[in-house]
């Protein structure tokens, strides 16, 4: 088990300020269940003085995620919003007597939730990690903005540290080159600003920052033009130790109706493919994150129906940007 300080353990076993704050006037939500952690931070802010009167949290995540969230609330209660905004993820970790390196991303999540809550209070849209710059790590949905911030705030100088602080690179590692590039560029800037000694800076072999930027922009333009077609996954091609299918940014703020319409559309798009193989699929109902479908034709009783289902599910998640479960109903359900 992890090497947690007594304070982390204490804040995990006896979390302070856990639960729902009904009279909250500032709410920040970050993370996603698919990534294994998520945090909802609720604040009650005095409109006159902008002092944080009360703070509560709800966290889905490991022990240190819960402890970090609780610690954050303790730190910010009584502070003004401006004071609170100065708090860094390192402050949260320090408050807890330190976190294991692999768990630093838990403190980053706390930092992000706070930024998001304050933005919410001020009626701004906080640019959360999914909307800032290019999506770098698909496994964990981490973009360039978050990575850069983590590097600068915590003086990171290795790719491993980036994984510890942001989770980026913790899966398939196809983003490794990109992480290296961001790291060396950020470090170069930090050296220029006198924040980092020359010899500490990370450098990729012969990385010409200007060229790298051009390359990145070109890639971005290309990506914007042609949405990458999801390669058709077949049973035997996908190695099980490979990362889970990348989730694009969650389509935030979708109403239920919009969600259902979108699901309908996606399934309509898929039907011709299924029909070609003598099968068919019909949307029956959407119940929360469960998408109920009826399979017919060759899909019924087909030994591979679980494959069909997971294909549909994968497609839905890729397009919707949040996890759903495709549930077969009727004769074919098991």
């Amino acid at each position, binding site marked *: 088990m992890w090497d947690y300080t007594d304070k982390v353990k204490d804040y995990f076993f006896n979390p302070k300020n856990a639960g729902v704050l009904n009279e909250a006037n500032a709410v920040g939500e970050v993370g996603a269940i698919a990534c294994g952690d998520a945090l909802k931070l609720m604040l009650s802010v005095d409109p006159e003085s902008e002092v944080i009167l009360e703070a509560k949290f709800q966290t889905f*995540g490991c022990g240190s995620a819960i402890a970090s969230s609780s610690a954050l609330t303790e730190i910010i209660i009584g502070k003004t919003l401006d004071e609170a905004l100065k708090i860094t993820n390192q402050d949260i970790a320090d408050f807890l007597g330190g976190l294991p390196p692999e768990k630093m991303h838990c403190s980053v999540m706390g930092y992000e939730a706070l930024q998001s809550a304050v933005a919410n209070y001020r009626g701004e849209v906080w640019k959360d990690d999914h909307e800032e710059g290019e999506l770098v790590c698909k496994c964990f949905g981490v973009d360039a903005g978050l990575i850069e911030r983590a590097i600068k705030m915590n003086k990171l100088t290795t790719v491993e540290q980036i994984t510890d602080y942001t989770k980026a690179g913790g899966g398939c590692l196809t983003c490794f080159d990109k992480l290296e590039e961001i790291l060396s560029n950020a470090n170069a800037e930090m050296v220029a600003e006198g924040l980092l000694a020359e010899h500490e800076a990370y450098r990729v072999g012969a990385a010409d920052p200007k060229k790298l930027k051009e390359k990145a922009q070109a890639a971005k333009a290309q990506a914007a033009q042609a949405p990458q077609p999801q390669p058709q996954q077949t049973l035997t091609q996908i*190695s099980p130790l490979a990362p889970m299918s990348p989730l694009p940014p969650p389509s935030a703020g979708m109403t239920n109706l919009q969600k259902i319409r979108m699901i309908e559309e996606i399934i309509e798009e898929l039907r011709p493919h299924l029909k070609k193989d003598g099968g068919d699929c019909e949307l029956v109902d959407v119940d929360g994150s469960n998408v109920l479908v009826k399979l017919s034709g060759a899909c019924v009783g087909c030994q591979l129906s679980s494959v069909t289902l*997971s294909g549909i599910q994968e497609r839905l998640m890729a397009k919707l940007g949040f996890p759903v479960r495709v549930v077969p109903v009727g004769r074919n359900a098991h």
Partner: protein
Amino acid sequence: MKPVYLDNNATTRVDPEVVSAMLPFFSEQFGNPSSIHSFGASVGAAVKTARGQLQALLGTAHDHEIIYTSGGTEADNTAILSALESLPDRNEIVTSKVEHPAVLSLCQHLEKTGRAKVHYIGVDSLGRIDIEAYRAALSDKVALVTLMWANNETGTIFPIEGLADLAKEHGALFHTDAVQAVGKVPISLKDSSIDMLSLSGHKLHAPKGIGALYVKRGARFKPLLRGGHQERGRRAGTENTPAIIGLGKAAELALAHMSEEQTRVKALRDRLEGGLLQRIPNCFVNGDLHDRLPNTCNIAFEYVEGEGILLHLTRAGIAASSGSACTSGSLEPSHVLRAMNIPFTAAHGSIRFSLSRDNVDEDVDRVLETMPGILEKLRALSPFWTGDDKGGKEFKPVYA
């Protein structure tokens, strides 16, 4: 309070009888079994007895079908590399998506270095192998089929004998990683089409650092380690005598307790499982209820993350393990649960309880008393847990 150990699929306590069987071989009986002189001879005789004990557990037909290794991982690696080398005109491997990393990582490596083409057969939501995909992957290009007998995380059992028969039709070698199955389910290799089988000592109350690879007489084999005539030249290196003796004793005990695994241990497991499902809303069993190891119970608790549960259990003196990411050092849910398509809402909160003949009724009571409170506490913290689910809307797992 007495600690409760429910992580026997990770490792087991060495049986005291095994310890006492081993002890003399650390001291007076130090001879090298391969030596001719009398120091070696008596040790050689003891190793022979141990070999016989293990053969009995596996139901082998002949002597000299067992090669001692340093453990399950070495046995798996030896089997896979040996098959590729022995059948040079075939370069494909068929395995599954839910194998132990000892098999998967090597397969990926072989794939990456261009030494083999690998078919990873999928499983359904209960963890059962996709037979049609398996049949389709078999051909005369396949050198080796390697499939686990029982899954370490969910306990789901593959119909290994039947799968081996199918492989034989195509002339492929068949290997099974039976690390979790040996000692828990009856095995008889003599009439099977299984060419190779891996096992590990510390999963069946023998010490760590000893394992074995069964190689059927007549099956093609190439050694992994060269440099000595031990194990008839099939695995060089001086024998780990005390551990071999220990594994023999453990095999004898496992055989003697086999029916207990199938009855008393299974009953304990079922009471644990039923009790948890009954006391805690929104949880379900991962794995195939009909064909599963008698000692394993893997339950997904929705809307919570596994590490939190384990921390609370640890504080209560209960040892279990999680199928989730955070505790294993990697950040993603287990590849087994992912292959089974367990939704994220549940995969992160999956806990494995694995029992052994060391467990007693009180152990189960302790877990049943402790778990509901833990879940209540953690779910109150979870932003995904809406009180509505409590009682009101009934949770209907699709895979039950």
